[in-house]
Every structure is written in C-alpha cells, then in structure tokens.
C-alpha cells in the first residue's frame, strides 16, 4: 500500500538511512555487495519499517517498536565470554567483527568480510526479494562480518562449536553461512550476548544440511535489557538430513527471530523447539516458515512461552505442504503460560496444504498455571512461590530435556533458573 510509504520517516528510519550514508564506504564488499546494500536501503526507504498491516509482522509493529536506533560505536569495549558448554570450541565475533577462530578438525572457515570482498569464490550479497523482509534488508545494508563455516563430508565434530557474537552496545550486524557436509555430524551454539547498553543487532544465518548429515543448532539469545535483536535463520534440509533447531530467547527488549526452513530432500527430518522467557517490557516474536517440498519428510515444532510482567510474546508458525509432498508428517504445538494481566501473547499457527495424503496438525494453548497442580504441591507444604517456580520450570524443561546432550540440558536449564530467579 502506498499510504504507508507516504508517511513521514520515523526517527529510527531516518537514523538508519543516515547511518548508512555515514558508514557505507567502510562496509566490506565487492561491487555486487555495494549494489545490494544500496538496494536494501532503497527498499527500506520505500517500504518503511513494517507495521501490523504487513501480514508477516501482524503482531510485531516494528515501525512503532523500534522507536530509536543507537549510534554506531567503533570503540565499544567487549570481550568474548566463556562458552555455555564445557570444552566447546569458540568462534567469537566482537562488536560485529570476527575476532577469534580456533582450528577444528573437519571444519573450514573464512571471515564473512573477506568473502564479501572476494570477487571469486566469495559470498554474493543480495538485497531481499520480499518487501516484508525487514530483517534481511537491515542486515544486508549493514552487515560488517560473520563466519563462513563448512563441515567436511562425513566429519564428526566431537566438541560443540560455539559461534559467539558479543558486543558492548551500538550496532552489530553479522551474517553467517554454515554448510554441514554429507553424512557429517555437529553441534553448534549460536549465541548472542552483550552489555545492557542499547544495541541494534541483526543476524542472518544460512544453514545447509547436506545429504544424511545430522546437525543440532542451538540459538541462545541473551542480549542486554535494552537490545533490539533481529535475526533470521535460513535452513535447507537435503535428502535424509536431520536437524534439531532449538531457540532459547532469554532476554532483550525487542526480539524478532525468524526461521525459514525448507525440506528439499526426501526423508528429511526437522525438530524445531523454542523456549521464550518473556518478562519486563520485552516483546519477543518467533516466526517460523516451513516448506515441505518433497514426499516423506517429517517435522515437529514445539514452542513453549512464559510471559510475565508487561511482556508481549508472539509465535507465528506457518507450515506449507506443497503438492508433491505426499506423506508429510508435520506436528506443531505452541503452549503459553501467561502469568500477568499486563502481558499478552498472540499466536498464528498456520497450515497451508496442497497434498492430500498427509498428517498435519497444530495445537495452541494459552493458560495460566493449573490450579490443581498448584494445590497439589501446596497441600504438601511447598510454598506458593516455590510451587509456581517448579511448575513453570517443568513446563519449559519438558522440551529442553528432549535434547540428548546432558551438558546442554544443564546449561540451558541453568539459564532458565536464573531467569525465573530474576522474574519469578
């Protein structure tokens, strides 16, 4: 609609456009990248930031929520932190620049900045094709660095790999491209953390899981209380590939995590899990688009949300089953504990089905803690506060514990405990 385009630019939109003018000569990239960045900013200018009128942003009015944009800070003091898993190999991006790259057997890497500059064998930066892809547009315009990783065919990466983006406020725009070779196995932690200074962080990750590979991808978003975090994970599953994607949103003020997944090979399997702990004034949106394109693919999606205080939570999950994708099995559930009258939760679990021989289902519930459960515990002498804590913990732990790796379960549960301690 043109009406929106005619509206005056908001402070944040102006700040982004000005920032681009100021930074564009310092951003890495060949001629193609420069043109893509220009196009992305032009699109941002033309479309503005999306409002509720844009269906993909129905519950996250980015134009209103992204009220201000912090300045770019070159000198922000930030240091890598300990990985969440003991013995993990840490790749660190500090203030949006690749700063630490360990050598890992079976793993090849390049800096994204170098790949963007390279004329041959690099990464082609492209402006987003869709007008509603605001995350893609912002990231394309400002991406400064990131990681390009590839796991060799049949490699079994024993130690977990943590890709850590740490910052001290300002602007952080990273992009990664990860390919897991045929038959390979690996566990990645994609972690975003920083100080409580205001930050606009964007991240785009493209993950390709080749034939028969098995990958676990854990997103741990623990940004500061003032952070605007806009992220997108693109996932391609080839034949017999398996992926477990687990998202833990533990903080941040404005969070949008998109996942665009496609099962492109037969017998591909996706397990998608998300735990969103939403308190304070946080607005947290997880949006999943999943395409089942070929026969015999399977997916399960479980999302658990806890909302307290003035938190606003959103889950949009769209499963699309294409006409050739017979025998698809897709099961989606979104369960929410809404614990405050000042908070809210909105969900839109969509199914779009063009194949007749499929089993697809979705369920969504929103409720507070079951009074019978509470009574059961309190009748046994457990205080109300402890009982509520236990029940909330149990509600989210159920899906955390599906992860087989014990150290991983412990690390995630410790973070959930800390959140409950702070918000309980």
């Amino acid at each position: 609609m043109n009406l929106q385009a005619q509206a005056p630019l908001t402070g944040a939109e102006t700040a982004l456009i000005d920032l681009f003018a100021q930074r564009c000569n310092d951003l890495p990239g060949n001629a193609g990248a420069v043109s893509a960045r220009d196009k992305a900013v032009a699109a941002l200018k033309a479309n503005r930031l999306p409002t509720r009128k844009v269906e993909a942003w129905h519950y996250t009015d980015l134009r209103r929520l992204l009220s201000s944009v912090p300045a770019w800070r070159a000198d922000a003091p930030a240091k890598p932190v300990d990985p969440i898993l003991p013995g993990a190999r840490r790749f660190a991006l500090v203030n949006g620049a690749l700063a630490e790259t360990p050598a890992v057997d079976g793993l090849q890497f390049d800096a994204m900045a170098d790949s963007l500059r390279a004329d041959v064998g690099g990464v082609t930066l492209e402006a987003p094709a869709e007008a509603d892809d605001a995350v893609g547009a912002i990231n394309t315009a400002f991406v400064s660095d990131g990681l390009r990783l590839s796991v060799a065919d049949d490699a079994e990466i024993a130690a977990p790999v943590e890709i850590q983006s740490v910052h001290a406020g300002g602007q952080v725009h990273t992009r990664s491209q990860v390919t897991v070779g045929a038959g390979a196995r690996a566990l990645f932690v994609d972690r975003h953390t920083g100080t409580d200074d205001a930050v606009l962080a964007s991240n785009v990750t493209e993950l390709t899981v080749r034939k028969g590979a098995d990958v676990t991808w854990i997103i741990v978003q623990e940004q500061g209380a003032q952070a605007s975090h806009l992220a997108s994970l693109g996932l391609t599953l080839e034949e017999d590939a398996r992926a477990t994607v687990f998202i833990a949103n533990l903080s941040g003020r404005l969070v949008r995590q998109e996942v665009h997944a496609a099962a492109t090979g037969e017998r591909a399997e996706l397990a998608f899990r998300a735990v969103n702990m939403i308190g304070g004034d946080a607005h947290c949106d997880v949006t999943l688009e999943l395409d089942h394109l070929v026969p015999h693919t399977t997916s399960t999606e479980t999302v658990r949300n806890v909302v307290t205080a003035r938190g606003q939570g959103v889950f949009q999950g769209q499963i699309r089953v294409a006409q050739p994708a017979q025998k698809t099995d897709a099961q989606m559930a979104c369960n929410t504990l809404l614990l405050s009258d000042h908070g809210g939760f909105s969900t839109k679990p969509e199914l779009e089905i063009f194949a007749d021989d499929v089993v697809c289902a979705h369920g969504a519930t929103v409720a507070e803690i079951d009074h019978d459960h509470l009574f059961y515990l309190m009748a046994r002498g457990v205080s109300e506060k402890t009982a509520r804590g236990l029940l909330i913990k149990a509600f989210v732990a159920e899906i955390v514990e599906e992860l087989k790796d014990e150290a991983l379960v412990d690390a995630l549960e410790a973070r959930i405990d800390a959140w409950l301690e702070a918000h309980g």
Partner: protein
Amino acid sequence: MPAVQETIDQVRKIDVDQYKYGFETIVEMDKAPKGLNEDIIALISAKKDEPDWMLQWRLEAYKRWQTMQRPDWARVDYPQIDFQDIYYYAAPKGQTGPKTIDDVDPEIRRTYEKLGIPLAEQEILAGVQERRVAVDAVFDSVSVVTTFKEELAKAGVIFMSISEAMREHPDLVRKYIGSVVPVSDNYYAALNSAVFTDGSFVYVPEGVHCPMELSTYFRINEKDTGQFERTLIIAEKGAYVSYLEGCTAPQRDENQLHAAVVELIAHEDAEIKYSTVQNWYPGDAEGKGGIYNFVTKRGDCRGDNSKISWTQVETGSAITWKYPSCILRGDNSRGEFYSIAVSNGAQQIDSGTKMIHLGKNTTSRIISKGISAGTSQNTYRGKVSVHRKATDARNFTQCDSLLIGDRCGAHTVPYIEANNATAQLEHEATTSKISEDQLFYCMQRGIPEEEAIALIVNGFVKEVIQELPMEFAVEAQKLIGISLEGSVG
C-alpha cells in the same frame, strides 16, 4: 490419511455439476438501470418508501465506500468487479413489498415449491407433525411474502421484511441498524449499507420464547443482478429465537454478487441461534459462473448471560468470504460457531469466525470442518481475542480439514490473542488430542483407537446437529455423513 471411498462418494453427490437449484424463473421484472450512483440509491430508497434518515444513511455509506479499497487479505482470487455493470434493484413486476400468498405471482410460487420452501401457512413439513416454520421469502431485491406474521404478532414477535420494518417500526430499526456492523466496517459492508434492498427483521420482546422457527429464503433469479441482503435480529432480555437462512441461485456463466450484512443483538439472558444452509450456485467445475458471496455477519452479546450461536453449512458459491462473529460484551456471555464448509470444482472458500472476549467469564467454542475436493481452495480463518479486562475467558477451537484429490488445498489461519492471565484458550487441530479422557474411556472398553476417535467426534457433532432446527439438521446430516477420518488440521 487418504479419504475413504464412502466419503468420496458423498462429496461427489454434492458436486458442482449436480446443482439441483440451477433453474431460472421466467417472470417479468421491474429493474432499476444498471450502475451505482446516488440516483440509484435514492431510487431504491424511494421504492421502499423509506424515511429520509435512511436515505441519508445510505448516501453516507456510499460516500465512505468510495474511499475504501477492496480487501485483499483473504485467500481468494477473483477479477475486479465492475460495480457499474450490476443491477442494484430487480423485483418481480407489481411486487414492491410482501403480500399475502394469494397475491404472489404463480410462477414465483412454483419456484418456491420446486425449492421445497413452504409459502402457504397450512403446509407442514412432511413427517414432522406440529412443526411450523415462518418463512420470509426474498426474491432478488424484494421480500415476496412473509408467513405466520399474525400468529407471531400474538406472541409479540415482529417478523417481517426489513423494508416493511423501516416503515412500521422505524424507531427500532434506527436504534439498532449499523450498531453491530458499522457502515464503514469493511468494503462490502459499506456497499451493502448503501444499496441493500431487502432482508428480514426480527424483534423478540422481553421474556418471549419465539413460538416457531423463523427463516428467510434468499433466491437470486435475475441475470446481472446483485443481491444485497440486510438482516437485523434483536432479542430482548430473556428472549429466545432460532433463525434459519437458505440461499440458491440459477446456473449461469456469469458471476453474480451477493453482499449481505447480518446483525444480531442479544440482550441480557437472551439467546439467538442463527443457522445457514448456503447453497448458492457454485459455478461449474472449471470455475465458470457462480455467486460471489461476500458476507459480514456479526452478533453482539450485549447483555450479561446472553448467547449467540452461528451454525453454517457452506456448500455453494464460487467464492465465499464470510466470518460470522461474536462480540462477547456481557459478563458470562457465550458465543458458538459450528461450521461445515465443503468446496468442490473451482470453488474458493475463506471463512471462519471471530470471538472477541470483552466481558468477564465469557466462553466461546469454535468447531470447523472443511472438506475440499476438485481444484478448490478451502481456508479456515479465525480469530480469538481476549481483552485485558476479560477475566476467566475460555475458548475451545477445533478445526479439521480433509482433502480429496491432490489438486485442491486446505488451509488454516487462526489468530489467537490473549491479554489476560486468567484466559484459557485451546486451539486443536488433531483428533488424537481432543479428549484423552474420553479416548481412554472407550479404549479401556475394547474399542480400537480409530473407532473411538470417530465415535467421540461423531458423537460431538451429532450433539450439535440434534440441537439444530429440523430443516437444517436434515440438510446438515447429509454432510455430516461424510467420514471424519483422514482429517488434517
């Protein structure tokens, strides 16, 4: 799970090529010139002998409509409609308003006979003793007859065409019209407000349980006409009314437009039950012809403990764009939506409901079954919204869809919004999770799981069907016979 043969056969029976009501009645018509402008609106208003405020209201709506844009968010695809190429008023010659049955053109009487609609008061449905239904028959732009008016009047119930009500009960109409669906609510509602020609008006006074079923039968007959129906139903404190609506149209290659607005108002302790059997001509298998059915239906549970229940069986129309909704304003009010939508040929259905919880202890239930075949697209689009002050709101939603053949599509787009911690909302699309207790009960007694699920789901649906008026139940039963197995959410 693929559909079983029995189900396929059932759906084939209601296939588009076997549309039974596609005949045309040849009767001399009195038509306004084609096109839409202020003169046409004034002409419609004059034909209906309306008070001036009504004309002004229409003109205001027309002004608003001109500034609005066609909604494009639904999953339906149709060419731009040329609103200047439609007759906005068409009535059988000499028929400007309802008459007694003896004055109705025999040709029109025969039409209703063929459709199985009793226009004579003494007629009683075969096999159903002592069961009477009052009928308001709307033929293109006018109501041709309304039956049992006197008997209903004895009970204090007003049942007449809305044009008549405008003249006889202007205060009531003025008080309520547009109070649930405002003039500028949406594009088609604004259009309807400007050019609506007829529909039914029902007023049930305090404490009255309406002594019989009320029904309106809409027939589009004339070529190139649009039908703009307006229905207004008011149930005063403690009143009860059950209302049915049926629709058919001739088989033609051109598309015809039906844009209706239905408003229901339930005061304290009142209950309104609204049932629809929508069987407009759906077009042929290639998508040629058929009715564009763009309908705004909304009920307002204005008083405490009020209840509004929508039931629809949707089998017709080339395009259906329809979301019968409930605004649960009164404390303890209840909204229900039961829907069976069957699409075949090249039909496109985008239908569902909205349940807006505003009052305390409000409850709503949504049961939607979509069945698509041929190359049709069948979408459930629904919204459940609990506002901040709506404590202890409760919703249960279940929508299942079934695809027959691999060229059709079934889609589910629910919007669920909770803003109060005491809300309990459940949206279910899997049969296996509906009620584990019931399932356990059956299986414990040796009934296999699949049979147990069928038993529970059928049992539940039957319960709904049994509550329905007989006329509806017979028609709906045919569709419910369709097996529920192989459902996808």
